[in-house]
């Protein structure tokens, strides 16, 4: 049956117009004074609205998030918050104070313990925990924001926004909101006559407000080389000699822990000594981690697309436009969506995790704490829609097919988990059963929160060796391959030594000596930079580390 002729097809637009009319008295054109923000939010947000609070890895709309959390819950309540990253106390205050009640999100990091508590207390009704790409996708399906609170570096009076290098989620949020008649309120560090470049066009933006303090940015990807251990260096050597070299990995995504930082820091020394410059690690999708500087400067890494920026790297990135994606104004533009897509279709993902079970499933979930997923599952999963070929992809595919007996020629993405068998305080990384199962029960989730599924993993690298899981032909073999590199953990001690020896003979398990890695060379002397100061030197003083990382 066709809708009646007097059915309204523009309810959203008309409702938005009413809201903007209410908001007009609290703004001067598009510009809102900081002290009027509470009044504006009460004017344009209605109970039950889906509100997107821009929460990235780095940049946070902290001023707006705080104002939202302080709204009068008698007037506005039951908001549905859709937000990629919960990082600030105010992101949860909004629930504790009864302004919001429903949440869809990706990652919660430091707020994980409090989040779990609020869920148990019934203060938060969680729709789902997503990966980044899933949540962005839902902005354009069933989770379109009614109001979005975003952050940018600067704005002009017409609402044109410049995000600076931390563009991150802003384009996805803005597009999903603006083209469904939603309202965008942007907090900016400064209002200027002309923005250096337009990252979000002004006609998408309803209001801009200059926050009393610049938006909060956390240098979360800075790893001090001084803290890299010999064990991490040993594993990095194994990755380079045992994986990057034989698979000729040129396009890849690195995680952001100390393990991958160790790889980056021995590219100019160890990989160079193996003659691998130009042959591996040419293109990466990763934030501009300072530990990449020596690898860039020595000609290993030629191109990097970033999901976000990193504090202190601005000038260095600006001075390397051939390597990074910089705008006509000279500063970088990041974009988490495109970075995730590029990484998903690259040849290799390598990252760390907290727990691995005997089938190679991994999780960062620990009891009483919900950390969520972020981007690792999108990077760290088989890209089944991939069609273009490359050497590493074909080689991994062929090895997989041999193990399973598949006859359809197909490539495979390399998904590598790099972990020490024990983490600090002797907590074992390997476990018979992931804590995720317990967490599922405790929080009444429908699935255990698994970060990377075992069947997507091709290799596990530990200090004991490399397990090529994609070369295993059945679950029993996979289990022994995992146990065979699980060191002296309980999981490792329960190995069937004959089965493990057999896997080693077949090259499914490789010890350092099997791939010609000399364990005695695994010292900090191998690091191209041993300190933050060394990174600054490599950068020609362009890199300016945040004060907390300095010892000068």
């Amino acid at each position, binding site marked *: 049956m066709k809708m009646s002729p007097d059915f309204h097809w523009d309810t959203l637009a008309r409702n938005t117009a009413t809201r903007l009319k209410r908001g007009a008295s609290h703004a001067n054109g598009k510009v809102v004074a900081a002290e009027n923000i509470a009044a504006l939010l009460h004017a344009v947000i209605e109970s039950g609205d889906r509100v997107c609070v821009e929460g990235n890895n780095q940049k946070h709309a902290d001023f707006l998030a705080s104002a939202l959390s302080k709204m009068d819950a008698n007037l506005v309540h039951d908001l549905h918050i859709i937000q990629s990253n919960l990082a600030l106390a105010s992101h949860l205050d909004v629930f504790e104070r009864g302004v919001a009640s429903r949440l869809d999100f990706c990652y919660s990091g430091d707020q994980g313990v409090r989040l779990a508590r609020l869920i148990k207390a019934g203060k938060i009704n969680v729709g789902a925990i997503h990966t980044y790409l899933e949540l962005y996708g839902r902005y354009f399906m069933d989770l379109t924001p009614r109001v979005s609170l975003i952050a940018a570096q600067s704005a002009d009076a017409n609402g044109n926004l410049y995000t600076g290098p931390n563009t991150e989620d802003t384009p996805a949020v803005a597009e999903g909101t603006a083209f469904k008649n939603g309202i965008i309120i942007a907090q900016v560090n400064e209002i200027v006559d002309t923005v250096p470049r337009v990252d979000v066009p002004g006609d998408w933006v309803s209001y801009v407000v200059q926050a009393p303090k610049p938006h909060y940015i956390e240098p979360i990807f800075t790893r001090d080389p001084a803290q890299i*251990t*010999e*064990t991490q260096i*040993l594993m990095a050597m194994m990755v380079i000699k045992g994986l990057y070299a034989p698979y000729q990995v040129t396009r890849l995504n690195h995680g952001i822990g100390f393990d991958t930082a160790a790889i980056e820091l021995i590219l100019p020394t160890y990989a160079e000594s193996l003659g691998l410059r130009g042959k591996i690690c040419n293109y990466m999708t990763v934030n501009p981690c300072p530990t990449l500087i020596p690898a860039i400067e020595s000609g290993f890494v030629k191109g990097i697309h970033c999901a976000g920026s990193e504090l202190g790297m601005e000038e260095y990135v600006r001075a390397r436009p051939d390597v990074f994606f910089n705008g006509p104004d000279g500063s970088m533009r990041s974009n988490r969506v495109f970075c995730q897509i590029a990484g998903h279709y690259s040849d290799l993902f390598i990252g760390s995790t907290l727990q691995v079970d005997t089938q190679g499933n991994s999780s960062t979930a620990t009891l009483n704490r919900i950390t969520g997923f972020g981007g690792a599952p999108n990077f760290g999963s088989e890209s089944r829609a991939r069609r273009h070929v490359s050497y590493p992809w074909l080689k991994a595919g062929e090895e997989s097919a041999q193990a399973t007996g598949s006859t359809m020629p197909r490539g495979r993405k390399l998904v590598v988990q790099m972990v*020490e*068998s*024990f*983490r*600090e*305080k*002797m907590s074992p990384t390997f476990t018979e059963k992931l804590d995720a199962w317990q967490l599922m029960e405790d929080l009444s989730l429908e699935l255990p929160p698994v970060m990377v599924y075992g069947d997507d993993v091709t290799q596990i690298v530990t*200090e004991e060796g490399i397990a090529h899981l994609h070369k295993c032909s059945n679950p029993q073999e996979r289990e022994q391959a995992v146990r065979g590199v699980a*060191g*002296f*953990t309980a999981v490792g*001690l329960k190995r069937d030594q004959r089965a493990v020896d057999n896997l080693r003979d077949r090259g499914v398990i490789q010890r350092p000596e099997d791939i010609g890695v000399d*364990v*005695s060379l*695994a010292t900090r002397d191998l690091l191209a930079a041993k300190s933050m100061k060394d990174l600054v030197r490599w950068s020609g003083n362009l890199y300016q580390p945040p004060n907390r990382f300095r010892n000068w």
Partner: protein
Amino acid sequence: MQTLEFEVGPCANPDRSIGSGLVGVVGSGNLEVLFEPADLNDKVKFVIATSVHGFDETWHAVTRSCAERYRLANLVITINDAGATPAVVSLRLMQAVEEFRGGL
């Protein structure tokens, strides 16, 4: 603190050339390892003081594995541990063997 004391070996074809010395330092996640020759009928005696309790089995496994790998014999190996992981323990024992081999 917990002190573990046990002997391992003797292993086949023991290397009797390893002398005395110290590697490592007692610091967070690290340990010091003292090698001292002693007449133990080709066995190796481990004396381990550790601040992390409940990993007896792990210590046995790590030390036995290293003793076999490097064919250790006639040594008292005393360890002061401040929470080192087995990876670090193995690394230190390897460094000790490399440094003190031929020390007798």
